[in-house]
C-alpha cells in the first residue's frame, strides 16, 4: 500500500505506548503472600518447566492448586513452558521449584514484560494491520487512522502491559480467525479460532457466531453438495486442532476431566468481586446468590444468556455475511458478559475486540463503547496503581478517534445504522425522529458520569459503612451502559436489511 511508512509509524507508536505503560506497576506487586496475575504467570512457568505434563493440572505436594493453579487450557501451559525455557537460560532462579515463589526483581520484570511484547508483536499486531489493510471502500488515510485507534485501545494495553496478562495472544488468534473466515479461508480461520479457544476458554464467548457464520456458509453452498464437504472439513479441522492441543491429556480419562474442572469452575458461584454484569448489579438490591440455590443460578444464567444471543445468531446463520458476523460477535460476547456465569471484569475485552473491528462503520458508538469498557475496569486498574497510564491512554485514544473519524459529526440516523429501525418505528409513530438527539444526550450524560465517578474514586474516601461504594457505582453504571449497547447492537443486526442500506459489496 502507499503510505506504508505511516502504517509503520502507527505500529511503532503502538509499541512505544505499550512499553511505556509496562514501566508501571503490575498486579500484586510487592503484595505477599498471594501477589497477583503476574506471579500467577511466573508460577505457571515454574510448574510447566519443573513438573511432568501429567501433574500440571493436579493437586500435589509440588503443585498446590490453591496457589495460582493452572486454570487456562493447554496452549497457555505450552506458552508458559516456552517462556520458562528462555527464563532458565537467563536466570534459573526465576523458575526454581518452590524457592522462586514471589520472586520479584527489575530484571525479571523486564523479561516478563518482554514476553508480552513479543507475543503481541507476533500475533495481535499483524492481525490488526492486516484487518485494516483489508477494509473495503475507505481511503488509505482512513485505514491507517483505523489501525492507530485500534492499537491505542486502552483496555487491552492496560490489562496486558499493566495488570499483566496475555490477552493479545487469544484475542490475536481470534482475530486471525475472523480474518480467515471473512476472506473465505474457512479452514485456516477455524484453526486459528480453535487455537484461540485452546489458549483461553473465555474465547467460547465468540464460538456461537463462528459456528453460525460457518454453518450459514455451508447452507448457502448447499447441504447436499459443496456445503456438506465444507462442513465435514470444518469439523475435521476443529477435531484435529483440539486433539493436537489436548493430546498429552487424552492418555487418561481422569486427566481430561480434571483439566475441564479447572477450566470451568462451576462451584465458584455466579460472580466474584465487582463486575459490570447483570448479576452483580442486581445483587446490590437483591442478594441472588443467597436467594436462589446454586443449580437454579446456573440454569437461569444459561437461559438468559441463550435467549439474549439467539436472535442475532439465528439471523447470522440464515444470512451469513462478514459484516453481520462482526456485529454478531459483538452482541453475542456482550450477552455472555452480561448474563453468564463467573464473569470477570477483564472479559469485557472479548467484546471490545469485535467492537474495534466495526470502528470504521459506526465510529461514534464504537468509541463510546470502548471508553466505557476501559472505565468498567477502573477499580482493578486503581488497585494495580495504574491511574496515570489509564487516564493518559484513554485521552490519547479519544483524541485519536475524534480526529480520525470526526465522531461528533457522525451521529445521524444513517451513520448510526439506525435508519431501517427508525423507518419501521415511524410507521407507527410518525414523530419518531429524535433518536439521534437522545443518543447524543445519553453519550454526554455517560461521559460526565464516568469522569465524575473517576474523580470521586481517586480523590475521596468511601464512607465507612459502604467501603465498596465506588466500585459498585462504577460497575453498575457500566452495566447500564452495556445494557444500552446490547439493545443497540441487536437492533442494528435485526433491522439490517439488504435493501435498506446503500449497497456495500460483500467480500
Amino acid at each position, binding site marked *: 500500500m502507499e*503510505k506504508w*511508512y*505511516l502504517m*509503520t*509509524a502507527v505500529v*511503532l*507508536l503502538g*509499541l*512505544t*505506548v505499550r*512499553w*511505556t*505503560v509496562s*514501566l*508501571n506497576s503490575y498486579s500484586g506487586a510487592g503484595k505477599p503472600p498471594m501477589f497477583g496475575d503476574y506471579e500467577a504467570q511466573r508460577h505457571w512457568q515454574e510448574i510447566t518447566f519443573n513438573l511432568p505434563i501429567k501433574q500440571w493440572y493436579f493437586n500435589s505436594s509440588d503443585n498446590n492448586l490453591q496457589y495460582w493453579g493452572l486454570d487456562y487450557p493447554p496452549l497457555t501451559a505450552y506458552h508458559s513452558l516456552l517462556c520458562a525455557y528462555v527464563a532458565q537460560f537467563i536466570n534459573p532462579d526465576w523458575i526454581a521449584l518452590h524457592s522462586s515463589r514471589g520472586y520479584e526483581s*527489575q*530484571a525479571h520484570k*523486564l523479561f516478563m514484560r518482554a514476553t508480552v*511484547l513479543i507475543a503481541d508483536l507476533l500475533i495481535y499486531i499483524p492481525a490488526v494491520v492486516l484487518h485494516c489493510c483489508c477494509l473495503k471502500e475507505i481511503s488509505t*488515510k482512513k485505514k491507517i487512522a483505523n489501525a492507530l485507534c485500534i492499537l491505542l485501545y486502552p483496555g487491552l494495553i492496560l490489562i496486558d502491559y499493566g495488570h499483566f496478562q496475555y490477552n493479545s495472544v487469544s484475542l490475536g488468534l481470534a482475530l486471525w480467525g475472523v480474518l480467515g473466515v471473512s476472506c473465505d479461508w474457512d479452514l485456516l480461520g477455524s484453526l486459528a479460532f480453535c487455537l484461540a479457544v485452546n489458549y483461553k476458554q473465555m474465547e467460547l464467548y465468540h464460538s456461537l457466531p463462528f459456528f453460525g457464520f460457518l454453518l450459514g456458509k455451508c447452507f448457502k453452498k448447499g447441504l447436499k453438495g459443496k456445503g456438506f464437504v465444507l462442513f465435514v472439513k470444518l469439523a475435521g479441522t476443529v477435531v484435529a486442532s483440539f486433539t493436537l492441543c489436548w493430546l498429552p491429556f487424552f492418555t487418561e480419562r481422569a486427566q481430561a476431566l480434571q483439566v475441564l474442572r479447572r477450566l470451568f469452575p462451576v462451584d465458584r458461584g455466579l460472580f466474584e468481586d465487582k463486575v459490570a454484569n447483570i448479576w452483580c448489579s442486581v445483587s446490590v438490591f437483591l442478594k441472588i446468590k443467597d436467594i436462589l440455590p446454586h443449580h437454579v443460578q446456573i440454569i437461569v444464567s444459561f437461559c438468559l444468556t441463550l435467549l439474549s444471543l439467539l436472535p442475532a445468531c439465528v439471523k447470522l446463520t440464515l444470512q451469513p455475511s462478514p459484516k453481520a458476523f462482526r456485529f454478531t460477535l459483538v452482541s453475542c460476547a456482550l450477552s455472555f458478559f452480561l448474563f453468564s456465569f463467573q464473569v470477570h471484569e477483564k472479559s469485557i475485552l472479548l467484546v471490545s475486540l469485535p467492537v474495534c473491528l466495526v470502528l470504521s462503520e459506526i465510529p461514534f458508538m464504537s468509541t463510546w463503547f470502548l471508553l466505557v469498557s476501559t472505565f468498567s475496569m477502573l477499580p482493578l486498574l*486503581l488497585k494495580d*496503581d495504574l*491511574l*496515570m*497510564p489509564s*487516564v*493518559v*491512554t484513554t*485521552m*490519547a485514544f*479519544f*483524541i*485519536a478517534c*475524534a*480526529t480520525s473519524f*470526526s*465522531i*461528533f459529526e457522525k451521529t445521524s440516523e444513517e451513520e448510526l445504522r439506525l435508519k431501517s429501525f427508525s423507518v419501521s418505528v415511524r410507521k407507527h409513530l410518525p414523530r419518531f425522529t429524535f433518536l439521534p438527539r437522545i443518543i447524543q444526550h445519553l453519550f454526554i450524560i455517560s461521559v460526565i458520569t464516568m*469522569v465524575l465517578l473517576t*474523580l470521586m474514586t*481517586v*480523590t475521596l*474516601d468511601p464512607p465507612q459503612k459502604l467501603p465498596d461504594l465506588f466500585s459498585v457505582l462504577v460497575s453498575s453504571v457500566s452495566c447500564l451502559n452495556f445494557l444500552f449497547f446490547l439493545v443497540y447492537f441487536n437492533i442494528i443486526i435485526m433491522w439490517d436489511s439488504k435493501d435498506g442500506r446503500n449497497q456495500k459489496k460483500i467480500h
Partner: protein
Amino acid sequence: MRIKWVECAALSVMAALSVMTGGGSWFLALALGVTLLKCLLIPTYHSTDFEVHRNWLAITHSLPISQWYYEATSEWTLDYPPFFAWFEYALSHVAKYFDQEMLNVHNLNYSSSRTLLFQRFSVIFTDALFVYAVHECCKCVDGKKACKELTEKPKFILSVLLLWNFGLLIVDHIHFQYNGFLFGLMLLSIARLFQKRHMEGAFLFAVLLHFKHIYLYVAPAYGIYLLRSYCFTANKPEPAASSLFPTLPFQEGPLSCILGSKLLGFVQCFGQSALRHRLLSVGKAGDASIFLILTTTGHYSLFPLLFTAPELPIKILLMLLFTIYSISSLKTLFRKEKPLFNWMETFYLLGLGPLEVFCEFVFPFTSWKLKYPFIPLLLTSVYCAVGITYAWFKLYVSVFTDPPVGKTKKQ
C-alpha cells in the same frame, strides 16, 4: 492512591483540550498527543539533572537572592544565568503544593514520587511555549502547491518533526532538562524575524540568552542577520555596509546563518541544532537531505545518554518512528526532485543499525567489555562526528553555491 486536587486540575485541563480536538484541529491533536506521550514517560529513568533542578528549586525558594550563586551544599551549583534562576523560583511556588521537602537545600537527592511528578509535569507544561512557537513557525511556512492531502502539507510535516522531535523527548522527558521551553523561545524569536517583527525577535533572543548562555553559539548569526536585514537594508543608502558584508549568506534568511554558526560551535547535543534546520528542510530538497543526515546522526549520538535496560526499547522505537517518518515524509514532499540521498549517504545512515546492534547487543557479551568498556561510546562518537561534520560541510557549500532567494519570498 489519593491524589490531590492539583493533579486533578492538571488532568482536567488536558481532558478539556482533548474534547476540543473533537472539532478536528490536527495541530491540537498532534500537540496533545505528544503531551500524553510525555506523561507516559514520567516513570522512566532520569539522570543527575533531575537532582540539579531540584537543588535549584531549593536554592531559589529557600535562600535570599544574594546567596543563590554562592550556595554550594550540593555539588550542582547554580550555573545558568539569572532568568533561569527566576524561572526556578517561580516553579518553586508551585512545587510547594506537591512536596515541601524538595525545597530543602539539605535534602540532597530527594526524589519522592510527588517530587518526580512535579518535576516531570513542570517540563511538560513549560513545553507549551514550544508548542506555541511551533504554531507561529508553521504560519510562516506555505506549501508551494495546494495539497489536498493533510499528511503531505509542509505545515503538517514541520509540526510533526518539531513537536514529536526525538531528541527533545529523550533529553527533556527522560534524561530531564528544560530545552523545550528554551527552544520555544528561540523558535519564537526566529518566527518573529520571519514575520519581519525584528524588534520582538531580537528582544526574545536577548531574553533567551539570559535563560541559558549556551545560545551564545548562535548570537553571531543573529547579530549579522539583524544588522543586514534590519539596520542596513538595501533600501537605505548605505553602500559601505553592503560592502562590509559582501559574501555572507544572509540571502537565505536567518536560518542558515544560525545553523552555520551553531554547527561552527560543534555543539555537544548535535540533534538539537537540527531543530533550526527543520524550517528550511520543508522548503528545499537539498536542505531536506542535509537536515535528515544531521538529525538522524545527531539523534543517534544521544543514545549513550540512556543506558538503562528498560529505556532501550523506548529509544529504539522512538528513533525508528521519528527517522522513518522524517525520511519518508520528506521524500514524499520532494518526490518530484532528485533523490534525497546518494549511495554513500544511504550507506552511512543504514550503518547506524549494525552499529547499534554491535554496541548494545553484541559487545556486552564479549570479553572486551571488561578491558575496554569505552569502545561503544568511542565508536558512537566517532561515527556520528563523521556524519555531522559532513552535514556542516555540505550546508556551507550549499549556502554559498545555491542561487540567492528573493527577499519577498519569505513573507
